């Protein structure tokens, strides 16, 4: 193989990635490694969703790379028959950035968890998001440290009693979607491990996006934090709790769409209210592509209130901004001169020592 051509950017996340010649199945993406997550782990559902979604992209399998950090979810690449790196705790975005910058022909994915991405790797996460490198970050959020057997994580709720917080955690948690939007992310979404259809839809949108995409996936840890998301997964409760975000549509939910999201003049933010009270015209219309992330941020803050816990899911933001890797490659393409390595080594102030000028010893 020769070196990669550094081409001009496409507008689609996968524009430069070559397509497979024939159809693929989920089986094509299963590696020969035995999957070793605990029984009932939410990671299985995400792995199955990814393995069944990748064939739909129709990419050449050898042009897909999954890079992970450390933690339960970071074993993910071993189970996918693509190229992959199981790297260092928190640092997966750095390897992915270097790879994506040099290889526009690859579809690069990062798999990470709440501890990996938001604690030890927080710095790399925010910088990947602000740079808008063309890579996709799947953040498995189970609100606990699983691989180290049950310490609280940066998304654990205050007061959480764990081995390292016997009196309850006094740490204030991150909201990953809010954090990503604050870090200038161009694509931010949230999905549940238990809702295959919605997860797949979000993964597809992330793959299509050119730039860094962050997908927070609520993922249950049955051993150390079982039921963390029961409030939004309970079949009866769910419709009262999940706010599906649909681009271009008013934000409303409930069995009959009886609840809606409206501006709160008191705070300048958003609040949940019965549509009967507010009227349909008062509902905010979701605009994922908006240049200004203010409304997306306000949506991400809708987690509690008079209505009780709610969780907006779907694509919060999918805005266009030039990607770091495209801009780097454009600069490289523009700087093409006809200067040779010989010219470079000589520089501008070279001089020649002629043989006849040699002094006598």
């Amino acid at each position: 193989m020769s070196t990669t051509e550094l081409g001009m950017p496409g507008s689609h996340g996968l524009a430069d990635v070559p397509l497979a010649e024939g159809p693929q199945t989920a089986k094509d993406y299963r590696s020969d490694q035995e999957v070793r997550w605990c029984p009932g782990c939410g990671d299985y559902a995400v792995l199955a969703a990814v393995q069944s979604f990748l064939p739909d992209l129709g990419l050449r399998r050898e042009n897909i790379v999954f890079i992970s950090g450390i933690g339960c979810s970071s074993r993910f690449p071993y189970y996918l028959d693509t190229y992959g790196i199981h790297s260092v705790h928190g640092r997966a975005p750095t390897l992915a950035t270097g790879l994506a910058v040099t290889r526009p022909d690859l579809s690069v994915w990062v798999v990470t968890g709440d501890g990996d991405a938001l604690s030890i790797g927080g710095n790399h996460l925010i910088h990947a998001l602000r740079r808008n490198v063309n890579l996709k970050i799947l953040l498995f959020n189970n609100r606990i440290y699983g691989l180290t057997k049950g310490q609280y994580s940066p998304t654990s709720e205050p007061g959480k009693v764990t081995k390292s917080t016997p009196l309850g955690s006094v740490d204030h948690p991150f909201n990953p979607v809010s954090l990503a939007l604050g870090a200038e992310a161009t694509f931010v979404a949230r999905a549940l491990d238990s809702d295959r259809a919605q997860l797949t839809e979000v993964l597809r949108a992330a793959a299509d996006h050119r730039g860094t995409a962050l997908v927070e996936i609520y993922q249950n840890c049955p051993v150390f934090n079982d039921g963390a998301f029961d409030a939004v997964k309970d079949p009866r409760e769910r419709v009262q709790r999940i706010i599906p975000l649909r681009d271009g549509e008013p934000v409303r939910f409930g069995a009959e769409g009886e609840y809606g999201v409206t501006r709160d003049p008191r705070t300048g933010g958003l609040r949940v209210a019965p549509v009967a009270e507010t009227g349909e015209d008062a509902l905010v219309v979701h605009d994922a592509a908006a240049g200004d992330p203010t409304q997306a941020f306000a949506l991400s803050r809708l987690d509690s209130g008079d209505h009780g816990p709610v969780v907006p899911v779907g694509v919060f933001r999918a805005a266009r901004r030039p990607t770091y890797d495209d801009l780097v490659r454009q600069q490289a393409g523009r700087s093409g001169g006809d200067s040779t390595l010989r010219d470079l080594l000589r520089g501008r102030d070279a001089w020649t020592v002629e043989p006849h000028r040699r002094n006598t010893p």
Partner: protein
Amino acid sequence: MTSPTVPRPPVRLERVVIRFAGDSGDGMQLAGDRLSADSAAFGNDLATRPDFPAEIRAPQGTVPGVSSFQVHFADYDILTPGDRPDVLVAMNPAALKANAADMPPGATVIVNTDEFTRRNLQRADYATSPLEDETLSGHVVHQVPMSSLTRGALADSGVSRKDAERAKNMFALGLIAWMYGRPTDGTETFLRRKFAARPEIAEANVTAFRAGWNYGETTEAFATTYEIAPASLPPGTYRQITGNTALALGLTAAGQRAGLPVLLGSYPITPASDILHELARHKEFGVLTLQAEDEIAGIGAALGAAFGGALGVTSTSGPGLALKSEILGLAVMTELPLVVIDVQRGGPSTGLPTKTEQSDLLQAMHGRNGEAPLPVIAPRSPGDCFDAALEAARIALAYRTPVLLLSDGALANGSEPWLVPEPDDLPDLRVEFATEPNSPDGSGAFWPYVRDESTLARPWAIPGTPGLEHRIGGLEKSDGPGGISYDSANHERMVRLRQAKIDGIDVPDIEVDDPDGRADVLVLGWGSTYGPIGAACRRVRARGLPVARTHLRHLRPFPGNLGAVLQAYRQVVVPEMNLGQLAGLLRAAYGVDVVSHSKVTGQPFGAEELADALVSVIKGESA
């Protein structure tokens, strides 16, 4: 009316050491840099030593704020920037104070008297003016009001008083250029290029430069000029080069010779940042630079790019290397090519950011968890940084391993004439990526940990290659298939294989320089001590004493003949700018009781001090 000056013939010298010293904002680095360039263009051999504080602008007029630049040029091949200045240009009292002790008796001192005010004398902690007491007795002192002469020369130029004053470094340079018969075209061209956007500033600097020259020529105070003939350098094309520039060019050349794109992931750090700056300018040679959010991200990006088939490089200094160590371990484990450059500085911790030290040899050798061997090499001169970069790339690519290259502050910022190589003469670094399944069982699978029999390198299979999809990572892998393996026998085998691969790297034998073959003391160095050790050995031999010397480029693995060489001498002396890091490694590896001669002042060895130490050992006076 003055009588016409009768020009006296210049006095011929073999060499001279000139040091410009002034406040951090006085432009001393630029003056020194130009004197070097003009001397190089004239054909002298030369070596330089910049020395500046870590603060960008330390308190004005104080000793900690003094910045200096020493140039040593000669009509023969010299090895060091010189121990002590023959000429000191002191732009203010603090500069004189900071450098006075370095001057040998009889040295020439040129002081900018305009700055010797009561306030500045106080700032430099002088109770009385050193120009009026005994401080400078024994030296030839020239008192020149450089600030006011420069302002006067620029009175009608239209530039502000402040800009006029700032050109005084060019006045000082002009005066030195006259004294030592330096060509002036280069500096004038340089100034017009540097200040192209502000032509009036360019002309002001040229005028100040000429005013300094004319001052020398018309003032009878400077009765003597000197001539230092061009050196007898081997024929060829030369340029002046610093170690950092040479490293950057070497990496660029390595990418070209390997046919690979280069990705530098780097976080700014003194004294390594110039490597990033230089490489950022060479995108047309397939070099991409990524200024990362931190040191870890720099090496992470380089390793990610290496997985994709690029020559991954990261550059840093000691504190940054500490941060990179975990990903260095991953690079050892994943066996991917990577070049890691550590431009060493005084440590520990933040230490002495702008001063040199051979601080990190043990960090390079051992600074990782587990058994994580990797090759370590060191350049010995600014120009040699180019060859060392190519050698680092050769080893990294051929053996699929991270390679640590240990430069230091003295090499990074020091400069010398460099014989520019022809690109076609550079080593061929082409690599072959894996293209076919390789499992020995014939199953058609790809096994990432099947090794080349001669190098023990594993295949480099890059994404985009169909059929070779595989996963690598920090967990231990099975020998051959490369799946996760916690098997104890497999771990032991893999640990030993990784070690054997590094131990088996093809490294040339060292050669010993022992002109008359009767020495029983060997001086062994590594890195930037090459010049001072060479100069010291010349002095020892000039005193009629035999001494042998050799210098290590490869610190891991050591050259195959090193043990035998060490055994062949009664005594081995290892001078190092640390507390004996190499000496300890040699004792451990070969059981030889070497003598460590160490110095940790942040400054290179002086040839004379080192010569004295060697003479003591040779005469058996002390260890």
